[in-house]
Structure formats: structure tokens, C-alpha cells
């Protein structure tokens, strides 16, 4: 969080975290497409030749004046493949909140679980308190074959107690519910901190 007191701006960072191909970049692409131009920056994507996220995607959102402040949100994604663990840790630095994107397909649960563990480990190493850090869970790809039921996903992943949203990010379902829940959580935490 960075507060520019002279201009009344509060800058907050939300990181979309999750396994490779779970839909993190798709979330940002949909948000970019459906947000008025005056309220968003360019969508920056650092991709490999195979069109996979190499370091991060980045998008800034503004929401206008709220009371006496102008909140601005920096949305980042992390690369999802297992071997980019170091990059994910770098992107988490300075985060004010995380959206964890779960791939609903049965054969991706091990990847989801591994990425959840890595997220927790990185957050702890970076000095965050997991009890109070705002994490929102998006259960994505509800429209594809081989998806597990929501109760089964809750049983397989340690997401109990976190705000959870079902989504089909490629069609936009659940994208803004997730985003708004994360923004609200981050703002509430910032309110406590300031």
C-alpha cells in the first residue's frame, strides 16, 4: 500500500495467484475489456513465445473519488507453471490482497494444492499474517467437463473460511464478483491499518 497524501491517492496491489492455465490472465483480460477506458491503464503482459505468462500481467484500475481519497488498484497475475516459483514470490512482494484462482478440473487438483501451499509459504516468508491477509478464492472453469463439485473442491483444498466465488472467467461469469470482493477486503484491511 502506498498513500500519496498530497493527491489523496491510496494505491493497493492485488495479485491473481494460481496454477498454470487456471484463468488468471483471462480474468484480467475480461476486466480490461469491460472497464471504462478512463478508469484503467494499459494491460501489460510479459509472455513467452507460447503465449504463457512469463513474469506477470499488469492492469491498474481506478474507481474515482471515494470520500476524501482516490483508491487505485494494481492488479498483477503470476506465472502459473511450477518452475516459476521464484517469479511468483517476487510478484507477491508488497501485495495487499490475493485472488487465488482454482482450476475446477479433477486432474488439476494437485496443481491447485501445490500452488496454494506455495502461496502460503511465500506470504509467510514475506512477513504477512495469514489470519488477517485478505485472500479471495475464485473457483474457475465451472463450464468444462471433468469438473469436481464445489463440496469436493472444498474438501480437497484448504479454502474453508475464505470468500469463494464460482466463475467461468472466459465468459466473464464471476469475474467482477471476485474482483469486488477482493477490492472490498483489501480496502477494509487498509482501513484497519490506516
Amino acid at each position, binding site marked *: 500500500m502506498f498513500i500519496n497524501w498530497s493527491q489523496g491517492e491510496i494505491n493497493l496491489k492485488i495479485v491473481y495467484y494460481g496454477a498454470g492455465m487456471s484463468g488468471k490472465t483471462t480474468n484480467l483480460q475480461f476486466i480490461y475489456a469491460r472497464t471504462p477506458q478512463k478508469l484503467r491503464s494499459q494491460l501489460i503482459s510479459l509472455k513467452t513465445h507460447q503465449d504463457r505468462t512469463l513474469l506477470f500481467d499488469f492492469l491498474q484500475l481506478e474507481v474515482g473519488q471515494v470520500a476524501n481519497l482516490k483508491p487505485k488498484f*494494481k492488479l498483477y497475475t503470476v506465472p502459473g507453471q511450477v518452475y516459476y516459483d521464484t517469479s511468483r514470490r517476487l510478484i507477491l512482494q508488497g501485495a495487499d490482497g490475493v485472488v487465488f484462482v482454482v482450476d475446477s478440473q479433477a486432474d488439476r487438483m494437485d496443481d491447485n494444492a501445490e500452488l496454494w501451499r506455495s502461496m502460503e509459504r511465500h506470504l509467510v516468508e514475506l512477513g504477512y499474517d495469514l489470519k488477517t491477509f485478505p485472500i479471495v478464492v475464485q473457483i474457475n472453469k465451472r463450464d468444462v467437463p471433468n469438473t469436481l463439485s464445489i463440496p469436493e473442491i472444498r474438501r480437497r483444498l484448504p479454502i474453508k473460511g475464505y470468500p469463494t466465488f464460482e466463475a467461468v472467467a472466459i465468459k466473464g461469469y464471476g469475474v467482477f464478483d471476485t474482483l469486488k470482493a477482493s477490492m472490498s477486503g483489501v480496502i477494509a484491511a487498509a482501513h484497519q491499518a490506516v
Partner: protein
Amino acid sequence: MYRSQPVLSASQLTAIHGLLGQLSQQAHMRCAFLCDLSGQELASWTEQAELDLVSLAALAAGDLMATMEIARLLGGKRACNMIIQEHDEMTILVSRVGEGLVLLIATAVDVPIGWSRLAVKRTGERILEVVGTAAMTPPPLVMSDDFVASFNAQIDNIW
């Protein structure tokens, strides 16, 4: 407990703007820019009115963090973190300032790299003096109690 991060006061930011402005007067500077390692832009001086500072901050921080991680994996012990890019039209230097800040300058190609490197180092030290001497505690409360409710109503109007 919420993880605390530095909060700069208006007077600190004004002082940092002044330092970047001074830097720009000493040589042919395209841009002088300060952000933090999480990619938040803090202060800038630029001769290019339409420069995308938001994207610049995210990319400069990502670039420096990736370079620092390469050094760490190779066993490097940090004395100074600096990335230098030499282009046909300009030279770009990205440097870590203290533990959490990033200073980027872009100079015309006729500015000697040695001078630029020294200027970045000295400006970085002066920025640290500004950040370090002033209080790092937040100014008085400005987020009113109904701020969260107002915020939630606002984002429902947008999306």
C-alpha cells in the same frame, strides 16, 4: 496484524520531486522516476507528457526484482543493484534505492554512463535521507468510518 509498509508524507514527496527535478537540470535527461519494489509509482520528472508512468513502475520493479533474484541464485552479495541499458537514442539506468525503492533515469546518449551512474547513486542517497529523516508513521486518520461502505457502493456503480 496488517503488514506495515512505508507511508510518505506530502512534504517528503515534494522533496523527492525536487531532487528528481535537480537531476534533470544537470544533464540531458529524458526521464527520472521513483517507484517502490512492489511497482507503485511515487514521483517522477519527465520531458514526455504522455509517458505511461503506471506501466513504467510495474515493469521497472519487475525488471529489477528479476535481476536481483538472478544475482541471488548465482551467489551475489549486494553492493549496488543497477541495470544499465544502452540504446541508440538513450541510456536507461534502473537502480535500487535502500531496501524498497527503485530509481530509473533515462538520459540522452551523449551523457556519459559514468556520470549517470554516479548521479543515480548520489540521488539515491539523497532520497534515502529524505525518506529516512522524516517520520515514517502515517499522518492522521483520513479514512472515515463510512469509507468502506462508500467504496463498496462506488464499485457496484462501475461494474
